[in-house]
C-alpha cells in the first residue's frame, strides 16, 4: 500500500494497485464535531477530482466530502452510514468512505504528504 496522501479539503487517500481508499482526516472530524449523518457516492458512479462525493453532517452543520482524485466508485463503507459516530472514533482507519478505481494515478502527485498536511492543517485552523 502506498504512502498516505492528503488533500486541502481534508481527505486522506491510500493507493493499492489502481484502487484508492478515501476518507476524511482526524483534523476534519475535530473541526466538524460529532458526526451524525454520512452520505456516500453510489457504487458504479464516476467521480471527478475535486468534485463532491458525499456529505457529512455534524450536530451543527452539513459539509461536502470531496474526492481528491477521479475514478469509478467500486466500494462504499456502509458501516459509517449505519453508525456515523464511527467516523469520529477512527477517521483514518476503519471509517474510510469509499474506494475508487483510478484512471490517472498522476493525480496523486499534487497531494500532500503527512508532514505537509499537518503543517497545512495547523495553519488553516489558526
Amino acid at each position, binding site marked *: 500500500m502506498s504512502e498516505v496522501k492528503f488533500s486541502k479539503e481534508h481527505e486522506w487517500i491510500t493507493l493499492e494497485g489502481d484502487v484508492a481508499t478515501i476518507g476524511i482526516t482526524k483534523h476534519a472530524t475535530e473541526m466538524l*464535531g*460529532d458526526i*451524525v*449523518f454520512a452520505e456516500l457516492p453510489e457504487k458504479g458512479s464516476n467521480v471527478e477530482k475535486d468534485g463532491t462525493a458525499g*456529505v457529512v*453532517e*455534524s*450536530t*451543527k*452543520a*452539513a459539509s461536502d466530502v470531496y474526492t481528491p482524485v477521479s475514478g469509478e466508485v467500486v466500494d462504499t463503507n456502509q458501516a459509517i*452510514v449505519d453508525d*456515523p459516530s464511527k467516523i469520529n472514533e477512527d477517521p483514518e482507519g476503519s471509517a474510510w468512505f469509499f474506494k475508487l478505481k483510478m484512471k490517472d494515478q498522476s493525480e496523486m502527485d499534487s497531494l500532500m504528504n503527512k508532514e505537509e498536511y499537518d503543517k497545512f492543517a495547523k495553519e488553516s485552523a489558526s
Partner: protein
Amino acid sequence: MEIKKTSLNKLHQSNNAKFVEFAGYEMPIQYSKGIIEEHKFTRSHSGIFDVSHMGQLFIYGDESLTEELEKIFPLDLKNLKQNCSKYSFLMNEDAGIYDDLIITKIEEGYLIILNAACKDKDFEILSNLLGSKFKMNLDKNRSLIAIQGPKSVEILNSIINGVDQLNFMTGNWFDSDNQKLFVTRSGYTGEDGFEISISNDKAEKFVENLIEKGAQLIGLGARDTLRLEAGLCLYGHELDINKTPVEANLRWAISKSRLSNGGFIGSKKIMNQMQDGASQIRVGIKPEGRLIAREKTKIFDDTDTQIGEITSGTFGPSVNGPIAMGYVNKEFSKVDTKILLEVRGKKHPANVCALPFYKKNYVKGVN
C-alpha cells in the same frame, strides 16, 4: 463593533470552550466533550449554561404599571401572583413577534428576560410604549446562569438553601454569599432546572462552585439540540416579526381572560386567528431514516407543491435520530401527515409529529 464578553468568558476559556459569535457576544458553542456528550450529560445529570447575553429588564412600578403592561402583553397580569412567571411575546399591531420572553412579577414591579439579539430594540419599544413614568433598567451588572437537568435541584440547593421549594415557573430572591440572587425554576431544555440572576463579580465563583458539586458547563450547541427536542421555539428561527403566536402554535401562552376584550397590542389579529385558524402553523417534523433537514429546507406535498419550510433541524441525541420544526399549510399540520423534504436536490419522506420530541421532566408542584 467590538465583540462583547460575558463575565464567565475566562472560565469558558479555561474549560477549553470553542467560541462562536452569537448576538454580538463571544459565546461557547461547545467544550471539549462535544455537543452530544454535553446534551446527554444535561439530560442525565446537570448542565450549566451561561445565558448572560440575554437581557434582564427590571421595570419598577405599582398597579398602574400592571395596567400599562396589560396593554402590551396578552397576559392576565392583574391576577398573576408575585414571584410567578409567564412566557409571553412583545408584538406589533399585526401580532408579528418582536421577541419572546419570560416575565416575572416581583415585589417592586416586573423582571423580563429578553433574547440577546432583541434586547436593545425591545428596550426601545417598551420605553416608547411606557413613556417615562416607570423606572426601567436593562441590567448590565448581572449575569444569568441556567442550571438544567435532574441533579440540578440537589446541586443548587446545596449552595442556595430553599430553591428546592420553588415550583416550576416561579421565582424568588435568595441570600447567598452576602448578596441577593434572583432564582426562578425554569429553563429551556425540557428538564427541571433553574435560572439564577447574579451580579457579574460573583458569577465566576458561583459557577465554579456548581462545577465542584458535579455540574458541567454546556455550550450553545447542546442548548439548541436540547430545546429542539423539547419542542421549544428559538427566536430568529421559529419566531420572527412575520409570524404570530397563533401561527407558532403557542395559543396556550395567551391568557384566556384577555381574549374576550382584547386591548393588547396585536389583539385584533390574534382574536381573528384564534377563531378562523392561521393559514400556516408550526409543527414537529421527523425525517425518515437518518437524514437531517436544516433550516430553510423546503417542504412539499406529493404533488410537488411547496407547502412549507423548516425553521430548525438537527440530530436529537436523546431521540437518537433527526428532528425538525417548521411551518406547513394548515391542512398538512395533522400528526402523521406524510410530507417531503427537499435536501440537496432530492425529496425525502418525513412525517408531521407531535411535540415535544422528548418528554419534559418539569417539577409542577413541590408545595
